[in-house]
């Protein structure tokens, strides 16, 4: 720590906006290194006690739509977008309500959560690494944007993130099937979460089977492999040179959640907290970290030279009452870690970091195509985490020049995402299928209802095809003074569409899905028609599709090696303001097909090293240029004396 005199309060070494995954890691690393960190969280901190978690679980159980934000109570002061804000229209097109204002050709139908813990409270917890060629898509495949750094720059940080988040996986299998290199002998902290019965059924029918995404295309041999997950599984005794790993249990309840017990509600809430969430990191924060919740950062403060010296924030008391007190806090370094869209919104609202005109642009997600069907026998859906295995065949390769690559997730939660199961199945069997305006048909009741449900629901499975979306400057977040939230902050205005290369990826995924369904002998129930639950409907080359948002917003403060064309440098430090960082998926120039949280964590940990260097530099004792200065000081009176 510096020995320089410091004001006692409201002045910190670092201010972090956002207590989600990225912000919690920044506070952890810098607090442990002795820096005084203020974390400002716009939302509440209900979840960091066990009764708070139980309240969220009750809210989830009672919710009609089991969407990712269902367990978390609405907050008028710090509103969050919700996937059900977007509604499809009968003839195609969509209507958007809620926090986002949308004016794009297609909806951005992903959400995030503004609360302590952030969106990582409702993430699925999958932590595959990005593949090395994902960092050079422009130079290698001619689309999107290249990163200024590569896989090798992040590799050690991937390992640190895997330790801090408690990852379970099989490194050898990933290296072989997904082409992600690891240091020799590396093992994950925990063994992979065991594959589900569904995984094993699919593996038995698919492993070794060749498929082609189109007639004449190159053949690829399918292989079902386990997916790394930040989920407590069996610790690997070989980890860390034989020191092993101790799983981190639930935040707020001692000795709980040290193993996944197979609830399939990872999204929206793990009832035992076996899944990593940032609250676990927060319990290990140093005492130098101060968390202030109910504190909406409204503006980043800069002086006339563009020197960022703090933030202005709005402190409110009651999440239901839109009244607040405006406060400021100062620090040597300000780190925005509030989600890619919120980071962009804050930069735009502050009029900062945008000399490249790239703030808010390049908005990306993993547009996801779902296909669903019934297998020939019960396969035990709704047991085990949301997804335990997938297929890595289509994540890269020459086809990437023409169409978006994709990753295939095998979903263990039946038709939950694709068709609202099991609630929708109960409604249909009760005769309530035809919409509320139509008379109710004859339904099944009692044992017959149960048997029929068991027969049907037990055979459900879904495949999730997550597309890489290329960075396009037209997909963007802007602000419009006409659209404000209850505290007067500008709401994100989103313009979003899918490029033809993403649509070609979606079409290829559907063709692959058809072949997979053939190989496993599944009855296909996939249907893509416009309607209220199909906001992502579009027609492409004569075929109908519906895509979903994956909740993986990225790209809005893009990283690059040129201040003229990017917002942040390789350390996620804004080019325009050396004391302002914007961390998170917003910095990603391309996303590959890996779920992005692990890469975000690795990037953030790498940035922490630079922030530490910056702070050390700022606090280095200065040597006054004593000799020449003294001469001048002495010389002047002499001159005066002579005159």
């Amino acid at each position, binding site marked *: 720590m510096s020995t320089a005199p410091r004001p006692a309060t409201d002045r910190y070494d670092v201010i972090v906006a956002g207590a989600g995954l990225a912000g919690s890691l920044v506070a952890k690393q810098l607090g442990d290194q002795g820096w005084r960190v203020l974390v400002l969280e716009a939302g509440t901190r209900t979840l960091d006690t066990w009764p708070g978690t139980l309240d969220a679980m009750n809210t989830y159980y009672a919710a009609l739509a089991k969407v990712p934000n269902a367990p978390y109570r609405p907050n008028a002061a710090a509103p969050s977008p919700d996937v059900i804000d977007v509604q499809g229209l009968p003839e195609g097109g969509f209507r958007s309500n809620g926090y986002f204002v949308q004016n794009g050709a297609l909806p951005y139908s992903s959400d995030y959560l503004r609360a302590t813990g952030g969106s990582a409270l409702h993430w699925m917890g999958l932590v595959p690494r990005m593949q090395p060629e994902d960092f050079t898509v422009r130079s290698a495949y001619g689309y999107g944007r290249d990163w200024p750094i590569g896989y090798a720059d992040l590799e050690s940080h991937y390992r640190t993130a895997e330790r801090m988040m408690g990852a379970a996986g099989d490194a050898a299998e990933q290296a072989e099937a997904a082409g992600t290199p690891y240091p020799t002998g590396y093992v994950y902290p925990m*063994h992979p979460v065991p594959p589900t019965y569904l995984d094993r059924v699919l593996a038995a029918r698919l492993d070794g089977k060749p498929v082609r995404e189109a007639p004449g295309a190159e053949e690829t041999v399918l292989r079902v492999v386990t997916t790394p997950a930040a989920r407590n599984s*069996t610790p690997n005794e070989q980890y860390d040179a034989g020191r*092993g790993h101790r799983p981190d249990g639930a935040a707020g309840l*001692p*000795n*709980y*959640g040290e193993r996944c017990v197979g609830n399939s509600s990872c999204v929206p809430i793990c009832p035992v907290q076996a899944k990593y969430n940032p609250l676990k990191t927060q319990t290990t924060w140093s005492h130098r970290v101060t968390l202030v919740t109910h504190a909406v950062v409204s503006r980043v403060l800069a002086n006339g030279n563009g020197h960022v010296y703090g933030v202005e924030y709005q402190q409110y008391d009651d999440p239901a009452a839109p009244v607040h007190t405006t406060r400021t806090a100062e620090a040597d370094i300000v780190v925005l870690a509030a989600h890619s869209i919120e980071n962009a919104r804050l930069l735009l609202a502050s009029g900062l970091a945008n000399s490249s005109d790239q703030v808010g642009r390049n908005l990306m997600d993993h547009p996801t195509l779902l296909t669903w069907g019934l297998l020939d026998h019960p396969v035990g859906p709704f047991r085990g985490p949301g997804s335990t295995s997938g297929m890595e065949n289509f994540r890269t390769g020459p086809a990437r020049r023409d169409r978006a690559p994709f990753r295939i997730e095998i979903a263990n939660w039946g038709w939950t995402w694709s068709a609202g199961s099991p609630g929708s199945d109960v409604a249909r069997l009760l005769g309530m299928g035809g919409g509320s305006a139509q008379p109710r048909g004859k339904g099944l009741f009692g044992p017959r209802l149960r048997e029929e449900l068991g027969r049907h629901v037990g055979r459900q499975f879904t495949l999730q095809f997550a597309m890489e979306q290329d960075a396009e400057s037209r997909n963007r977040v802007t602000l419009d003074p006409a659209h404000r939230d209850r505290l007067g902050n500008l709401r994100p205005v989103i313009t979003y569409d899918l490029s033809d290369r993403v649509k070609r990826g979606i079409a290829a995924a559907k063709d692959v899905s058809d072949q997979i369904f053939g190989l496993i002998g599944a009855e296909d129930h996939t249907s893509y028609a416009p309607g209220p639950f199909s906001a992502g409907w579009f027609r492409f080359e004569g075929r109908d599709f519906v895509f979903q948002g994956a909740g993986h917003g990225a790209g809005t403060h893009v990283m690059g090696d040129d201040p003229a064309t990017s917002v942040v440098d390789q350390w996620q430090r804004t080019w325009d303001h050396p004391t302002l960082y914007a961390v998170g998926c917003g910095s990603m120039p391309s996303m590959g097909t890996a779920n992005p949280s692990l890469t975000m964590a690795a990037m953030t940990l790498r940035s922490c090293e630079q922030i530490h260097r910056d702070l050390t530099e700022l606090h280095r004792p200065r040597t006054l240029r004593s000799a020449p200065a003294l001469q001048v000081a002495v010389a002047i009176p002499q001159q005066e004396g002579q005159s």
Partner: protein
Amino acid sequence: MTEPTVRREPPFRVPRDRADLHLFLQAALALEHLTIPPYLTAMYTLRPGTNRHAFYAIRGVVLEEMLHMTLVANLLNAVGGTPCVADPRFVTGYPALLPFSKEKVPIALRHFSVEALETFLYIERPDYVAEPPGHPSVADDDGWTSIGQFYNTIREGLVRLADELGERELFCGDPALQVGPRDFYNSGGEVLTVTDLDSALLALRVITEEGEGVSGTVFDSDDTLFGEAREPAHYFRFDEIRRQRSYGPLDTPATGPTGPAVDVRWGDAYPIDPAAKAAHYPPGSGVRLAADRFNEAYALLLCLLERAFTGEPAALQGAIPAMLELRDLAEQLYRNPHPDPARRAQGLYASPTYEVTTRHFDRARVAMPTP
């Protein structure tokens, strides 16, 4: 395991040879198991969603009792014995008497209530612990006075035999039989493998200190032994429920709990007949069938445990779905009013009876998942 050791009473003396030690450790295994059905009964008679503090407290204790069972099995394997749990004689009939204790206190299957908590407090109480038999302060005809004395006696026997036979000779068991941290465990403490005297004594320390606490404090030693969160020992967690107030960080057994109030609602539980037997339910009735299925599911759990303790530690993972099945079957029973009109009139509900017979074990062995 030969027939007599399953339930044979250990003699009132320090174990003097390996066979003696096996007898003591098998008795310890049964003792650790004895508490599980009463604790499960209190936990599952809670009306779902109510009394959450009590639910998580009892749940934590039950899991740690399961840990203690596993640690005793590791001890027994380490000294060349063979744990036996999948046997009708292993499951005590309830109400049972707490062994190795001076007072004859019946341990019944009671719903969540003051009486149940008082029984639990009796089981876990930190008490003056007499020296092992043979000590000048203990007369030959005193008999066992506490569970603590019983475990002290095992400890003394281990130390003496390690000295007489040599440590390596005493701990001659196959290390592959040890259940370790790689196998499923999900609560306080840690499954540690027993391979020598140090690990054996540590295992005994976990068993006694998680229950009664470190002498003079209300807390267990999970923090110092495993770097985990420190929690009140079992006795004091039960005491928090009974007295509806939690222990603060500076509280001691002498101060009693002075922390925040604990919300306990005795009425939010299904009252049951502590003397219930499956035979009280009419043959062929749904409740009778459910009670029978419960006993079979419990037999299956014990079969899985025996498999895990006798050569296939990974089988422990199968205990998770088995426990979920038990929970569902138990809750189904507790939600049904007792079929007997007189008991129903008293507001009593049906309950699992933990009468696990040879017939249940036979059926469970058929239903066992293939390794």
